């Protein structure tokens, strides 16, 4: 089936800086569109029927032998199952190591006066509260469209993104998967080009 907005079963814009969650059914494909470019989309995955099974960054990275996510990457769970498979990627640069920003880590990264800025962890904790999940369900996430190159000596830092307006990543669900997103509100580094913007979520049936 040719994927068009007309034949999508879900099509919603997620405003800058807010959380979003939705269950993508087995066989469905989720597309995340970076509408204006260079917008980090902090994303976590859970088995929709058992939230204790979640995305595992370690297992995903190790099983494919690479720290980057792109077409062909299988997202592996903490219970050793495939949750999603990346089926298209027009950006080619997604971070797996950096995790999500928080009020507390901002105080360490930048200064104590940054504590009261909005953060991904606040988005996650709020959404997890609304979903009646457990705060301990949080773990290392994927940062779609965020650029974190790593050097031979381990040095890494968030640098300017390479994601162009309209870039997207498609992922096909291999189980009913709760996708939990924080559309990153970080203003202290180039992960969002210092200007957080909306993204579009589109879902197609198999």
């Amino acid at each position, binding site marked *: 089936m040719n994927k068009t907005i007309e034949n999508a079963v879900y099509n919603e814009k997620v405003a800058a800086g807010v959380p979003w969650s939705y269950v993508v059914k087995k066989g469905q494909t989720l597309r995340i569109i970076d509408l204006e470019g260079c917008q980090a989309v902090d994303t976590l995955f859970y088995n929709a029927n058992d939230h204790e099974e979640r995305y595992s960054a370690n297992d995903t990275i*190790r099983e494919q032998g690479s720290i980057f996510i792109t077409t062909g990457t299988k997202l592996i769970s903490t219970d050793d199952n495939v949750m999603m498979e990346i089926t298209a990627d027009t950006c080619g640069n997604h971070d797996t190591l950096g995790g999500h920003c928080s009020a507390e880590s901002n105080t360490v990264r930048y200064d104590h006066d940054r504590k009261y800025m909005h953060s991904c962890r606040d988005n996650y904790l709020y959404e997890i509260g609304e979903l009646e999940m457990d705060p301990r369900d949080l773990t290392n996430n994927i940062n779609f469209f965020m650029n974190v190159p790593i050097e031979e000596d381990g040095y890494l830092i968030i640098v300017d993104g390479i994601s162009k307006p309209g870039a997207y990543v498609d992922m096909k669900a291999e189980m009913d998967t709760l996708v939990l997103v924080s559309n990153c509100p970080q203003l202290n580094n180039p992960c969002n080009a210092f200007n957080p913007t909306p993204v579009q979520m589109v879902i197609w049936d198999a």
Partner: protein
Amino acid sequence: MITKHKNLNSDAILLDEVIPGGAKWSKIIKRGHTLRITTKDGLGSLSAMFYNADNTAERFNSADTVKLQHNAYFCKGRVLYSELGRVLLSITEDTTEGFFDAIAGISNPRLVKKNFGEGDFEHIRNRYYKSDRENFLIELGKYGMGKRDMIPAINFFRKVDIKEGSKLELSSARPKPESYIELRAEMNVLLVLSNTPHVMEEGKYNPSDVQVTLYTGAPVAEDDFCMNFSPQSQRAFINNARYFA
């Protein structure tokens, strides 16, 4: 078992024991105490998960740790952060010279079988091939904790190189026999350890003994090496001080 510890006054030692290859171990390390972890023959690999013992919802966060120190690797002076911008453990000594891995994760029964073949209790009794997953679930259960508390771990005594900017490779290099790391608790820390082969190891299932030596030390001084290692560490220690205010 090592009985004469380098640079360590025997009067300060609170606990000294060997964790045999394959075993699991846990302890609450009190704030200010230091745990020396020694690899007997340099061939060990030890996985660790750890938590604020007074509030286990505050956990080691490998992503924050890597991000805050701008490096995926570890050395003396660096600190291991909780997800609340505080320091759980400081790396106050490292004679292994950088043998840490926070990328590859832990083993599970499927991977142990794939990497080492069959080794079940029925046939080889207590030498059976244990995986990190079972070790952590068992040990965490003793604190009323479970799968949700299984955080991305850090592995001691092995290193995973990242080649060409992305490719993972388990380094064949090993630390020297009887080399050690020291971790100083910056709050009361629940430390859970699993002493099984590294998740990317293959061939012979041959885990190696490690020794844990807990000792008391002087309070953190103004010129402390770890606290002053970076501006980030200085700010994190301020967060710790505020937590205990």
